[in-house]
């Protein structure tokens, strides 16, 4: 190999490394990640704080048990009392993570407890949870992140201590933005990546198992009619679609295309929101036509909401309203 080639090789490697580092670790404001943390863990807390499904234990005792890889590693199924404690701990850590109290510990704890809790419900002949597996992976990202640096009780209490209990000063410092850092970008991008992976892997699985015939056959028609029997879709639109070749084949191709090309949203800011909306819309369409829900993916969609823009818009509206009040005689 010539020295020139070696040099080129080195420069290509360093260029790739540079692109990778800029992609994941460019400095970024802390506010977005903080607001996503509140929305994500707040949603999960609201949904799972009263989770108390000790009946899984009853099912296992009854011989209904098809363990997933996680439980084949020797992870035990605890007695109902221990399960109840784990669920309580999960609820508490989700709440603390949303509030930003003991952020790093609570986010790590919510990941560990959710990893166990939601793994348990996968051992009964069917993979369930509507995307909860991806939510757990995203939680692992939060567990390693510094998402609690801004808009957190941790920060407030720290400021309160440093300002010796002076509340106005503490509040003024609390509303001052945290300096941007690469620490606040990668967890967001990781969450987006996982959201796209959910659909990308589903799209690739379809192509691997069935090829383009998945869309270019009566497959979707039969699925729509089948769910009319086996599920309870809220509308009869599925049958309307199943009656029209152009509708179900078009829908099949569109679904495949959206799923397979979804990761493009990660690399293009222009495509990010359209893809997220298309995938969210597809999910809602599945509910309307097939009666199948993927509730947990709502938590992932919350990561795409432009929270800081909304936050700033709300601040502007409040400021404008205050000025108007002052001008009035």
């Amino acid at each position, binding site marked *: 190999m010539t020295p020139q080639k070696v040099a080129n090789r080195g420069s290509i490697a360093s260029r790739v490394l540079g692109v*990778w580092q800029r992609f*994941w*670790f*460019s*400095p970024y*404001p802390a*506010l977005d990640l903080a607001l996503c943390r509140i929305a994500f863990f707040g949603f999960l807390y609201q949904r799972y704080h009263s989770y108390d499904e000790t*009946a899984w234990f009853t*099912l296992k*005792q*009854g*011989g*209904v048990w098809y363990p*997933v*890889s996680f439980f084949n590693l020797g992870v035990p199924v605890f007695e109902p009392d221990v399960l109840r404690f784990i669920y309580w701990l999960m609820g508490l850590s989700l709440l603390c993570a949303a509030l930003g109290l003991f952020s790093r510990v609570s986010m790590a704890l919510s990941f560990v407890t959710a990893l166990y809790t939601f*793994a348990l*419900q996968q051992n*009964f*002949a*069917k993979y*369930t949870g509507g995307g909860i*597996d991806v939510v757990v*992976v995203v939680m692992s990202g939060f567990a*390693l992140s*510094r998402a609690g*640096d801004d808009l957190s009780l941790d920060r407030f209490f*720290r*400021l309160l201590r440093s300002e010796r209990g002076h509340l106005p000063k503490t509040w003024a410092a609390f509303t*001052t*933005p*945290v*300096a*941007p*850092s*690469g*620490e606040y970008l*990668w967890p967001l991008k990781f969450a987006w*990546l*996982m959201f796209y*992976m959910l659909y990308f892997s*589903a799209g*690739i*699985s*379809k192509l691997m*198992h*069935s090829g383009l015939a*998945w869309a270019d*056959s009566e497959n979707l028609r*039969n699925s729509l*009619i*089948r769910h*009319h*029997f*086996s599920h309870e879709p809220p509308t009869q639109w599925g049958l309307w679609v199943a*009656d029209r070749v152009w509708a179900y084949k078009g829908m099949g191709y569109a679904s495949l295309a959206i799923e397979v090309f979804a990761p493009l949203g990660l690399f293009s*800011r*222009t495509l990010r*929101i359209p893809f997220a909306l298309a995938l969210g819309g597809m999910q809602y369409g599945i509910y309307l036509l097939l009666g199948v829900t993927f509730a947990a993916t709502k938590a992932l969609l919350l990561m795409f*909401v*432009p929270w800081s823009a909304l936050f700033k818009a709300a601040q502007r509206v409040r400021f404008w309203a205050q000025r108007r009040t002052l001008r009035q005689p």
Partner: protein
Amino acid sequence: MTQRGDEANNTLSSSVALASPPPQSPSAPRRAVLSFAIIGVLAAYAYCVASGEYLWPISPHPMYSSIQGRTFTTFALVGVSEQGEFPLRSEHARPIGASTLRAVLNRKQGREHEKALATFQKLYERARVNNPEFPELLGLRSYEQVFQIPKQGRSLATLPKPRSTLTSSLFLAPLPLRQEFKQQAENVAPPVRAAGAGDIVVELHAAEPSSTPKVNDARASEREAFVLSGKARRAPQAEPARYIDVTFHAEAGTYTLWLRGAAAEKKQEASVWVQLDEELGTQRVAPHDKRAQSSGFGNWHTGLPQQVFAWSSCVPGAPPLRVSFATAGSHRLRLSAREGSAWVDQLWLSREQQEAPSFSGAVSAP
């Protein structure tokens, strides 16, 4: 999100009171660890998608990836209450969903299927504690349903009903019957009822002499019951060692076949074979029904206490089996051991009684 910049926003610059303010970019070792973690997750996804394996929490998400045909088979699980059958939904068997119920039944066969029903019944009873409006369960039944989707071009306005076959049944005795079982446990015979007009009641103690042993029991009709016991068999023997032969006269018509008996021993099956007329001396079963072939008769071990007399046709609580006679005349019927050990004392061919009797006492001839 479009208003967000991936680059640093220089107007947001002060770092205030963080325990350890983060540098603009994570340190090199931390970047390396995070990069390896991200690449590891991506590699795990690639492996799962390529192999179809689940490595919780990484999944290949293969749902709906196989092509659906126009014919499909599924299981329907229904609860039985005094008002009739009702479909078992997710809220009835929390935390297990309706589609998971079907998936479990799909994997379970035979006795395992019945065990799964018993577990689902426990879940229902748990759910009923918080939802008293749920009806009292008299039993659970699972049906295998075959759906045939019409071809393209045919209107979907009226979709065809599925072909349903009962595959398993869990019988939970209704309250009055449970009261009688309690009395029977104290050796009190339940009251005798009169059979309907045109019904045929056969007292088995008067059957032709055979080597089949008998047991004396105050609760049995005429205080005597036969004990049919033997090894589990897939079909009746042409010449069984232990059997009961009875002869009776019947008018032409269709009768529902009921057998009064009990499971003689704990944790043991208790079912018998029934053969009629020309089937005697062969390995065929009467009536010529898939359920009679697969489950036999009686099955008092299913959902009933042990050593308690009760009426059963095929399986307690399941729809009964019927026999038809084209002409009036004399008929021969043979009962022989199928599996486990059963006590039997009365045979009742009824024109009226088409639902499982809500009493356990013997019947008297009309």
